[in-house]
């Protein structure tokens, strides 16, 4: 069954790069400019994605983290991967919000690494 992946990023070039990588691998990709659009789609669409790739700093400094809390509370089955420009500098912002293990990847998008992590997260859901 084709896995569905949602991707939220306000940068058009990043969206294009991720879309090309994922579609070539056979994933179905839906992209959003803002967290609000993505969360709204979760309310209206019947089918939910299997995995979401979220930019940490879209709209505001911690929009990604706030959205994650909301998504995780209402739709715990959706796996999440964070993409950030800041690398481990983002750590202070994450430490305060969650004790759970959260997957954070540093930009730029590297095809092999990204695909590897996505596969890992999707297999984790399947195992659960």
């Amino acid at each position, binding site marked *: 069954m084709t896995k569905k992946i949602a991707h939220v990023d306000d*940068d058009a*070039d*990043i969206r*294009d*790069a*991720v879309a*090309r*990588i994922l579609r*070539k691998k056979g994933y179905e990709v839906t992209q959003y400019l803002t967290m609000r659009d993505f969360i709204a789609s979760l309310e209206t669409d019947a089918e939910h994605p299997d995995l979401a790739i979220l930019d940490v*700093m879209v709209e505001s*400094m911690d929009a990604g983290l706030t959205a994650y809390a909301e998504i995780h509370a209402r739709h715990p089955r959706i796996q999440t991967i964070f993409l950030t*420009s*800041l*690398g481990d*500098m983002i750590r202070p912002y994450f430490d305060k919000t969650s004790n759970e293990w959260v997957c954070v990847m540093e*930009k*730029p*998008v*590297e*095809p*092999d690494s990204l695909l590897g992590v996505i596969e890992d997260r999707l297999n984790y859901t399947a195992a659960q």
Partner: protein
Amino acid sequence: MAIAKFSWNQNQQKAILSRNNENACKLNDEILISNIRWFIIFRWGVIGALILIHIFALITPDTLIQFRIIEENNWPLTITLILSLANLGYRYALDYCKPGKFNSPTINLWTQIVVDLICLSVVVHFIGSTATPAPFFYILHIALACIFFSTLESLLVAVIVSIMYTIVLLAEYTLSIQIPQSILIDPALMSDSKIKNHLLFWMTALNILFFTVWYVVSRLSLVVRAHENRLTEAYQQINQAQQEKDQYAVLMTHQLKSPLDAIRSKINLIKGGYCGEVTPEIDEIVRKIDQRAANMASLILDLLRLQRLKETCSCMAEIKPVKISRALQKCLEKLTPVINTKSIILNVSIDDFIYKGIRDQIEILLENIISNAVTYSHHNGIVEITSRVDANTRTATITITDHGIGIDPEDLPNIFNEYFYSPRAALHNNATSGLGLSIVKIAAQNNKLNINVASEPGKGTAFTILFPAVQLPAIIEEEYGRGSAPIGRPLAE
């Protein structure tokens, strides 16, 4: 059509701040409660003194009668009982009763002061309102009121004191007051007017004293409180400014790095074959573009790291015990790709120890020094990492030695300067940002570490980090059970 109005009038903000200052001249409830407790304890001391007087009276009553401290009325016992009961009452109201309209710290303090003044007035009445220093104890209550209450409230206390003292004086010299002002014909009346003058003198003198003390202490109190408030405000403003500065730095880093990440993501698409075949020439150019973009990205992140390190003062950061073997392991794991790329051989020999410091900063310090050792080594070079603990002085050193390009003697004093890199280093590593060792310097400063550097051009460099106060392995094993690295065994290769 939506309309938004913007105003950046700084004067309005200043007006709000100064209004807050005026209200802040009263002490807040928390401070009042701690003052109440102190006042209660102080009163127990006074009660103790009164009990001593009573015991003294039982042993040598004549001495005390001679000094007019006690007469027929056994006032020490009465006053002691009243004060003790009152003290217990204040304590009960403070700790066991629910706060409400009639039970607040301010009411508690007022009650204490009024009851004290009544008791003091009774004591003054029995001892003597002019012949003894007892009236001066009123001044203590005026001073305390100036410290606890606002200026107006302390003035009210001063007025109450003045009234009570006047009542005591009048009670003592009732006869002289009852005689209306008239021509003194009868010589027998002369002594009464003398007493009246005496009374007037003391009333005037002490009232002037009471209000002078009120004025001086209340002014002082206002000044001290204003200073305290200004300090608290300044501290809050500094904290806020620090947070805003960090947020700004993070935002700037993000804004600078995002376009680079977009560029490099697209380059990765080309390199990954997502855009079809590329000629070798294009591939080479694309790799060079990627390398320069990667260097810029790492410079931007280093800038943020440096900014963050400079902001941290050791009082605010979390100081925790850091196990050196674990920190080194983390660094080596992170640097494995670079180590493997240059096929560097690592010789590691660790005496494990624990140092109390800021974990992240110690890790970045070690990482940067080891990274430099690897970067400035030749291919297949050797890098040695050794740590030694001196059990007698409870100090330790970590030495990182490479056999690479070395540092020229004239460059050695400048290696920790920001953006400094020697021409020799730049030749060997064109990706250098010049910030790596400045980050090491700030991390060393924040963790109270010293660093010695020895180098010879063409032979290599040794960085020695000196740890002033460490915990030893035996203590580590007791506290942490298992997990410390055995002495001398290599940690990683």
